[in-house]
């Protein structure tokens, strides 16, 4: 009997996320991506930890100076210290990525689970509307939205960031919605949902207690990858001159201002682009690791 008790004690229940965590802990890829992400998040949260320079200080006399012991990443065309600006630029990039992801996942997943659960005309209308949004090429759609919003003239940093987040969220929610809808349709036909309905459970309980916990995994994986993609999207829009812009400092803004002097000052492009690529890669790797850990079939 005591042996049995010991076995019972050792065999503590573990839910799906407990299992996933157990699986993730053993993956080097997970730790590499998490440390890269933590580093970038730290840069975004407390830039003064990494640099004491002023990102707004332009010394035209040092314009386009290459990297040196004094300025590790060199100076750009305006004479800004690139290292200081790369560190300070992390914040805008991360904020845009995180806010866009939250917006996309919350709206997309909510609409998707409702469409999947209720089906019928609601599903038909939502799916066709999503098709329309998917049909609009991302960059074209963003140009239309942002040029319209930018027409108002000078805007503060908060408004600039909010506009970019809004345009990304408006153009990307259908992806999260489709993922959620298809998993919700599959979950709805599961026997445990039938059993809950036979017990007299209301739609709210079925969606909240039975479907949502079983549907979040694919959206969660999507959101990690999307976060990286949205940071990239911000850079794309800023490069085109319609996304973030002065006075906001971001990697995309830096790439934009470096593009005209690529042959004379390649370092001005190299460093922000390198940080951007590494950050996007880290999120994509994290998404891959999480997906493999959450999918029991791959174990």
């Amino acid at each position, binding site marked *: 009997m005591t042996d049995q008790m010991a076995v019972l004690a050792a065999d503590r229940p573990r839910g799906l996320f407990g299992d996933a965590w157990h699986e993730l802990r053993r993956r080097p890829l997970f730790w590499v991506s998490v440390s890269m992400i933590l580093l970038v998040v730290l840069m975004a949260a407390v830039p003064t930890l990494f640099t004491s320079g002023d990102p707004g200080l332009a010394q035209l006399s040092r314009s386009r100076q290459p990297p040196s012991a004094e300025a590790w990443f060199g100076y750009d065309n305006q004479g800004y210290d690139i290292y200081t600006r790369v560190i300070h630029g992390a914040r805008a990039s991360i904020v845009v990525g995180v806010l866009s992801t939250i917006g996309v996942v919350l709206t997309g997943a909510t609409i998707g689970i409702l469409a999947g659960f209720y089906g019928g005309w609601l599903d038909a209308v939502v799916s066709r509307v999503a098709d329309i949004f998917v049909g609009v090429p991302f960059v074209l759609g963003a140009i239309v939205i942002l040029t319209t919003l930018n027409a108002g003239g000078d805007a503060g940093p908060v408004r600039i960031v909010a506009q970019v987040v809004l345009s990304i969220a408006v153009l990307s929610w259908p992806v999260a919605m489709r993922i959620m809808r298809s998993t919700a349709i599959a979950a709805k036909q599961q*026997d445990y949902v039938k*059993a809950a309905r036979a*017990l007299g*459970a209301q739609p709210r309980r079925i969606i909240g207690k039975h479907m949502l916990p*079983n549907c979040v995994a694919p959206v969660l994986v999507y959101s990690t990858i999307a976060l990286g993609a949205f940071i990239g999207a911000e850079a794309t829009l800023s490069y085109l001159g319609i996304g973030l812009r002065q006075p906001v400092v971001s990697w995309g803004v830096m790439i934009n201002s470096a593009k005209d002097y690529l042959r004379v000052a390649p370092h001005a492009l190299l460093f922000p682009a390198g940080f951007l690529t590494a950050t996007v890669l880290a999120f994509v790797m994290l998404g891959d690791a999480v997906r493999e850990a959450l999918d029991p079939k791959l174990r």
Partner: protein
Amino acid sequence: MADLLEVRDLVKHFPVKRGVLFKQTIGWVRAVDGVSFTLGAGETLGVVGESGCGKSTLAQVLMLLEPPTSGEAFFEGRPMFSLRGAELKRLRRDMQIVLQDPYTSLNPRMTVGDIVGEPFEIHPEVAPKGSWAGRVRELLDVVGLNPEHINRYPHQFSGGQRQRIGIARALALRPKVIVCDEPVSALDVSIQAQVMNLLGELQSEFGLAYVFIAHDLSVVRHLSDRVAVMYLGKIVEIGTEEEIYNHPTHPYTQALLSAVPVADPALRGRRDVIRLTGDVPSPIDPPSGCRFRTRCWKAQDVCATEEPALVERGGHPSACHFAEERSVVP
């Protein structure tokens, strides 16, 4: 005995649709096509038939998970299909279901305690909140599980144990009828017997009535007072366990019984094996007249033109123009 459940002429047709944007109905799957039966309190009605004959659809409609196309059902004399809101919720307490696949019928993200306790959360009027945990432990004990395992997740149990969890959930509200939709067909044979015995014990302990659906005649026999044999959405023969197993009159029942394996090798050569040829016709376009005629060795012209009614023939209701007793099991 008074009828607890009465089903009259129940029909469930599913539309077959084609087209992407503008869906057109191009036909109907006649899953259940005019089924009538009664169930007394504490009684077990076995429903058998091969895959696709409409047994599970019957269960879904009875549990009000799918609306019927037509027909009526009465629970304790009150019509079931017109119930809404609070009355419908009240009926759910009296009728519960045990589903076929114990691997999909339990939510993998909920602990056993949450799964078995959910009926109390949905129907808080049944028991005061403080007593739920105690009741869940009691239920686990009743179905032969260790009440200490209340915090475990379904994946930590075997198939048979999972089915016991499903049974505990169905029992929680003390229903009068439990619809068992092939509750043992996903389990190992040795475990099947344990679960069947448990269902038998629970029946005598709580006075439950079962609608017991299975595709295996030998499983149903063990528990049933009466047996209905279904073919392509219709009941072809219905009677007491003794009448169906020892005096079958419908050719389909006889063919099914002759396919049950015989344990005694000495008897094997002497029994009369009926081999049916062909497949079950599509329920979208069932044969005219008698639905079994395409595979029946007795079929005559009349079978194609006139549908045989399920009426008393040779001692109990049988839907065959040429109903005749034939002993197939020695």
